[in-house]
């Protein structure tokens, strides 16, 4: 669950930081579904699925590129907060 991010951020600023991350995940979800769902219009479902999953793979690579560009945070101590699918 998203809120699991909040579980590992105690200070007040970290709290809003977690909320911002949650929000960006939700916004990404909403926009991703909007774009992929619109690919079904005027196309056979199987083709739309292939197209969308290809786009999804591209998005992963972008996310990967972004994540690897992020400088490491000062403190490396992290907690194993378990990521699960959610909205």
């Amino acid at each position, binding site marked *: *669950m998203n*809120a699991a991010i909040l579980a590992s951020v105690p200070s007040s600023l970290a709290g*809003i930081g977690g909320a911002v991350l949650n*929000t960006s995940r939700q916004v990404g979800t909403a926009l*991703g579904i909007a774009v992929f769902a619109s690919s079904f219009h005027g196309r056979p479902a199987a083709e739309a699925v292939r197209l969308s999953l290809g786009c999804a*793979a591209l998005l992963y690579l972008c996310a990967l590129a972004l*994540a690897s560009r992020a400088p490491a945070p000062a403190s490396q101590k992290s907690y194993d907060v*378990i990521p699960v699918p959610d*909205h």
Partner: protein
Amino acid sequence: MPRPDPDPRFTLIASSFGLGMALLDVTAGNVALPSIRADLHTDAAGLSWVVDGYTLPFASLLLLAGGLGDRLGARRLFTAGLVVFTAASAMCVAAPDIGWLIAARVLQGMGAALFMPASLSILRSAYPEPVERARAIGIWSSLTAVTGASGPLVGGALIHAFGWRSIFLINVPIGVLGVLLALRFVQRSPASATRAFDLGAQAAGAFGLAALTWALIERSARGWSSPLIVLAFVCAASGIAAFVALERRSADPMLPLHLFRDRTFTTTAAAALVYAAGFFGGLFVLSIEFQDVQGYSPAAAGLLFGIVSVLQWGSPSCRPRRPSSCKGLSWRSPALAQLWSRPR
């Protein structure tokens, strides 16, 4: 009335109930989409509103909910959110058509935005002692893992046996129990009116986001040059610009923009957005693929989604039908794991 010093375990149960219920809906929801499409006679655009109808208000209200929690008290917010969510679930069960279902999903999203952040706050105040608190939060967050993996399985079986309405119906008894537990056992949390919240910025941001989503969903049916689509994009841009301008001027913003000066923070937030677009957009597409293209039953599709969810923990980008997209995110996971595990 709560006792002066209630057993914190009941708070843990109440907050886990709420969380588990919302998570089940979200994870099982994907399995239900093809059944909803067949039953309520809608298309992919209609189905995307079933998901986005929930996601949009949830996303829009999350930042506001933090401020509301400070102002009204976490217990009140948790209970109110749970009541809204449970009532909206009952509306989903009764939905005679797709418009009704989407309206009910919007209400569910609003309820979830209220009680999700509050469920962690009430847990924190029920366990003031750090070791106990860490354990309670550990239990609470491992529940999210269990529900995340079993949600599609349980949901698939429920849909297979009783139809898609059953995944919303089981929320009703769980929600009622959660509310009763919260009223009886959760300690009243102090409400402070210290933080103001900016309803103007909230409305502008939510409006901009909704207009953008609407434009993206409807653009393929209406075409890029349709005046309505152009208008929606203009609305989206001005809504988001107004949000940023209002937040910049505000003395106590919901979204402190200086956070984005930190490069780690900004890139992590951007990666989270892009990754979620791919993953949850992909899940939506797979729901149609598994059942409408491949012809699996809801139960079999639920099993496949369960596998996708489990794979996601080890290797965030793996998915069964697209091995090419698994290019080593797992060994990269320290970078990606930042998205989920923030330094303490």
